[in-house]
């Protein structure tokens, strides 16, 4: 049954991709296709990294409500960018080699994320406390970021503005190749670990009893999560509720938490929502700049519903 549903999701995702590529084609077709292809690649990569990182994160923390971005990871990333602009100045920042900067940002982000997340897992914090801490950290980084941004000159400020909001139109296609390699490597790792992930989802003690070296596995998975979040944030900016939305949807469609099914399902839903949503807004509704807002709105609703459901249980 799960297989048939996976097939359905695959069909939807393929249709979205086709629609995105082919809708309203006119003018120099080869040129337009090339442009769209590049954009599609970036979108696919974002879908892949957000879906996979959310599933991984929820598995390691044994909850279905927290996501890396709710825990303030992408706020951390934006803060890091602002700090870079602040230190180097708008021009200095803009003149940094893209790939080099990207690499540096990711290393920084991964280090900070591990420093934040690891103690939380180590101390076996409960959900409520983790959520509170994540929200607080998110606010902290956003405020710090706002503070730094106020002290910038207008030109540098404009650079920061560009980096701090989700924007599915102004994709950083220059980073696509590097990002794609990192995403694929990370995703390959976690696909290989899909059976172990099922065991890890049982919780720390149960997993240890079944022979999983929990500390090592959890640290490795958090590392993958922070890499994936860094890649997607670098490409489109922060998207708080997108991961939550797609994983919750995928889980309801395939009705299983087995990673061999859930991981591809979440990725396919993410592709459908992101690529399909982008195409619909662009071609049917005429303005695509609002996809981020729509996703955040729907995702926020899902978040609230999950919270209320969880509270009632």
């Amino acid at each position, binding site marked *: 049954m799960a297989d048939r549903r996976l097939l359905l999701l695959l069909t939807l995702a393929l249709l979205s991709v086709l629609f995105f590529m082919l809708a309203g084609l006119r003018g120099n077709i080869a040129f337009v296709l090339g442009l769209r292809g590049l954009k599609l690649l970036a979108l696919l990569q974002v879908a892949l990294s957000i879906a996979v990182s959310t599933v991984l994160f929820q598995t390691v923390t*044994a909850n279905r409500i927290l996501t890396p971005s709710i825990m303030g990871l992408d706020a951390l990333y934006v803060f890091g960018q602002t700090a870079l602009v602040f230190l180097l100045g708008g021009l200095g920042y803009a003149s940094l080699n893209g790939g080099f900067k990207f690499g540096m940002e990711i290393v920084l982000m991964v280090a900070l994320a591990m420093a934040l997340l690891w103690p939380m897992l180590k101390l076996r914090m409960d959900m409520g406390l983790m959520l509170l801490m994540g929200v607080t950290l998110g606010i902290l980084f956003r405020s710090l970021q706002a503070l730094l941004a106020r002290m910038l000159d207008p030109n540098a400020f404009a650079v920061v503005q560009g980096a701090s909001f989700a924007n599915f139109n102004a994709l950083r296609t220059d980073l696509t190749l590097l990002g794609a390699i990192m995403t694929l490597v990370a995703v390959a790792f976690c696909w290989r670990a899909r059976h172990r992930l099922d*065991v890890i*989802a*049982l919780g720390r003690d*149960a997993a240890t*009893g*079944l*022979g999983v070296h*929990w500390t090592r596995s959890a640290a490795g998975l958090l590392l993958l999560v922070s890499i994936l979040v860094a890649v997607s944030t670098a490409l489109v900016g922060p998207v708080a509720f997108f991961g939550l939305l797609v994983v919750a949807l995928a889980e309801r469609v395939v009705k299983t*938490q087995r990673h061999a099914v859930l991981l591809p399902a979440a990725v396919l839903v993410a592709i459908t929502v992101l690529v399909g949503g982008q195409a619909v807004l662009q071609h049917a509704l005429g303005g695509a700049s609002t996809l981020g807002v729509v996703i955040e709105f729907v995702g926020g609703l899902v978040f609230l519903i999950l919270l209320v459901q969880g509270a009632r249980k």
Partner: protein
Amino acid sequence: MILIENVSLSYRDVPILRGIDLALPKGGITALVGPNGAGKSSLLSLVARLQPLQTGCISVDGMPVDTTPSRTLAQRLAILRQDGIVASRLTVRELIGFGRFPHHQGRPGALDLALVDAALDQFDLAALSDRFIDTLSGGQRQRALVAMTFCQGTDYLLLDEPLNNLDMFHARQLMRSLRRIADEAARTAIIVLHDINQAAAYADRIVAMRDGRVIVDGPPAAVLTEENMEAVFGYRIRIEQIAGKPFLMHHL
């Protein structure tokens, strides 16, 4: 053999276990008894490497639990925890199937599937096999967790209050299954019990703990005396002999 040498544990300077020394040879049933907070669960979780050792050493068949690869240990030793929390939403069959994970690492063979079916039958779970565990009654859930632990097929079984929530029929059945695997397959069970009469009837050895120490240790007939029980549980318990076994009138 499980060898526990000079093991102590404390949380924020509050001592929980104080210098425990125990040698549990292979084969047979050892019952761990004692009042609430005596440190029974803490001891088991140390043996099963669920928390790090602070002082002392523990080894299973000569393998130190803190340095041996987790998977190797999981093929020798299985633990049923007292709280039995399972974080994910699974069917009974899936849950029991996880017991085989240390052997197949996610790719179950014919033997693994057959063992899961056998465990379903053994614990009266066949009719419930496709139900989600969060829809089961407390006792049914407990049986599913016990079945998973059995299914792991290890030489050593650590069971923390496996009789919790079980009715008399299933409690007896579980104790008899343990007796059978101990006698026929020379497997070893270390089992925390609050029903001391179950320990009297089925265990080969009783280890009684209190305040993080082992107070008495030996065969049921030697351990279950009125003096010993008073030292462990803090009140006088009348003991009768029924059908050749000591019977504690602990509820009177």
